[in-house]
């Protein structure tokens, strides 16, 4: 195995559906062995990008490679990349075990491998039941079991937490962390940063089909500077005053009937502005940096245009 067998390279990837440009010249790199969060609001082009990476959707331009090869050129795709793409992608009449054994047969893995991955995701007890009786969480587990069948070096997961209860999300997080500890490359998409914040070490943030930020997670926190929380009886006037000094409206959030949160400014700036505008302040404090807010700011400031249809 070479060092970059698990490296994902996306360059200039472009795809339109009709007149909607779902992915627009997207370029990013996922390093071998990293856990990378692939983030963006719904409709940003995450699913389309992952499907192009996996050879399911044909790009209009650009290319995506895993370990230097296009997915279609991988010698043993299931043993190289494991993918969890959508919940409920099963034939409802097949049992969990029968479903897995199909892919054992296709890949030439022994039957026992199906039971091993069922054990790994905690589905052994339901293995003999048809999938139509599975809960959403069980389906996600079966999807993950399918992805792990070939013990792949790279895992690609599209919104794996969707539809899971908090316990299921915690379970998924633990499992992914264990898998990543074994040196696997993990690319996990989400529209909510907080869902993957404790899991990932790198992020690729996209919006409207373009990459708006990529790098280590900790750099994200330094991006927008301080966060200030302020309470005032006249929040609307303060909002107006702040935007009047050039603070983008997307950086101001109403957090209560008389409370605002402002990113990218210091407490003294807010205090002086309020004094100058004769707006009484009841409370003013610096908050710990909120990555979700950074994410929100990044994906909203770029282009305040309506989102493309979801599912893209």
């Amino acid at each position, binding site marked *: 195995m070479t060092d970059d067998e698990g490296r994902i390279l996306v360059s200039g990837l472009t795809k339109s559906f009709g007149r909607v440009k779902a992915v627009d010249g997207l370029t990013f790199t996922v390093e071998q062995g990293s856990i990378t969060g692939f983030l963006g609001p719904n409709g940003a082009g995450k699913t389309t990008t992952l499907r192009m990476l996996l*050879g399911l959707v044909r790009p209009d331009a650009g290319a995506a490679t895993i370990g230097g090869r296009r997915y279609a050129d991988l010698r043993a*795709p299931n043993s190289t990349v494991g993918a969890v*793409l959508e919940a409920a992608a*099963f*034939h409802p*009449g097949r049992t969990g075990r029968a479903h897995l054994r*199909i*892919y054992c047969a296709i890949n030439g893995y022994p039957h026992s491998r199906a039971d091993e991955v069922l054990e790994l995701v905690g589905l052994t007890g339901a293995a003999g039941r048809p999938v139509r009786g599975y809960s959403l969480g069980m389906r996600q587990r079966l999807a993950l079991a399918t992805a792990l069948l070939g013990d792949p070096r790279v895992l690609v997961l599209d919104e794996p937490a969707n539809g899971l209860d908090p316990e299921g999300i915690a379970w998924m997080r633990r499992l992914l962390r264990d898998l990543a500890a074994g040196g696997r490359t993990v690319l996990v998409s989400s529209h909510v940063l907080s869902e993957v914040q404790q899991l990932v070490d790198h992020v690729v943030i996209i919006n409207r089909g373009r990459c708006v930020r990529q790098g280590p997670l900790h750099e994200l926190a330094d991006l927008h500077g301080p966060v200030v929380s302020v309470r005032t009886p006249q929040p609307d006037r303060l909002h107006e005053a702040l935007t009047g000094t050039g603070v983008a409206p997307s950086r101001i959030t109403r957090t209560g009937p008389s409370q605002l949160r402002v990113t990218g400014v210091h407490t003294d700036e807010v205090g002086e502005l309020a004094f100058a505008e004769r707006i009484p302040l009841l409370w003013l404090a610096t908050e710990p940096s909120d990555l979700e807010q950074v994410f929100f700011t990044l994906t909203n400031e770029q282009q305040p245009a309506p989102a493309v249809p979801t599912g893209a």
Partner: protein
Amino acid sequence: MRRLIAGEFRKLFATRLWLWLLLAAMAIAGLYASLQIAFSDDPDTWTMPLSTSDGQQTLFAAAPSAANPLIAVLAAIGITGEYRHRTATTTFLATPHRARVIGAKLLAYAAVGVGYALVCTAVVTAIAVPWLSAKGIEVSLTGNGLPGTIAGGIAAAAVYALIGVGLGALLREQVATVVGLLIYLFVLEPILTSLPALDSWTRYLPGPADNALTGISLTNQQYLQPWQGGLALASYCLVIAVTGTYLATRKDVT
């Protein structure tokens, strides 16, 4: 490719649809054979007397091939189910060369079609041989051109399976594919072939071509030579399977 075909058989046998359709096919073949024998002495019948080789060939061809639409439906469900249940994603992740997936399905379902035809022929044999013997007609499966008829029937069953897979790859929509198949086989083709004025070209349609291949003779129908019927069927298979495979490899799986 052997693994892919094994995978297709696993998919098929993971649910019971194949069994229900096989039982239905056996019932249809058995019923058709019984009715044909029971009313073979009717002076108005379009079939030849069962004491003649033409009559026996028709019996051994028509009864099993009555189940062919079920084979086409099973094959069509087998491929369109991948899109309906969105398992196409997992399937194409395991085998990115989609033409190989379609190829494996074509071969697997052709084999299933052969199996169905063998079982249906066995049902017809089990009914016809003793019954005709009681009527004083001894039937030998190795004589009266019956080996050719049975071989033709098996080939025709495989053809229907191939058409089902190919059409499914072409249309991808399960309901549209199955309903389309049934409308063609049970409405459109019977209407067209019932019009003697159109006979010069309707004899090239899949049903009449199938009848020609298996050696069915009816007093009110003109068929092609068996080899011409086989050639016509092979052409349909080829065109549909190639177009279906081409589309399946081009289209995005979303």
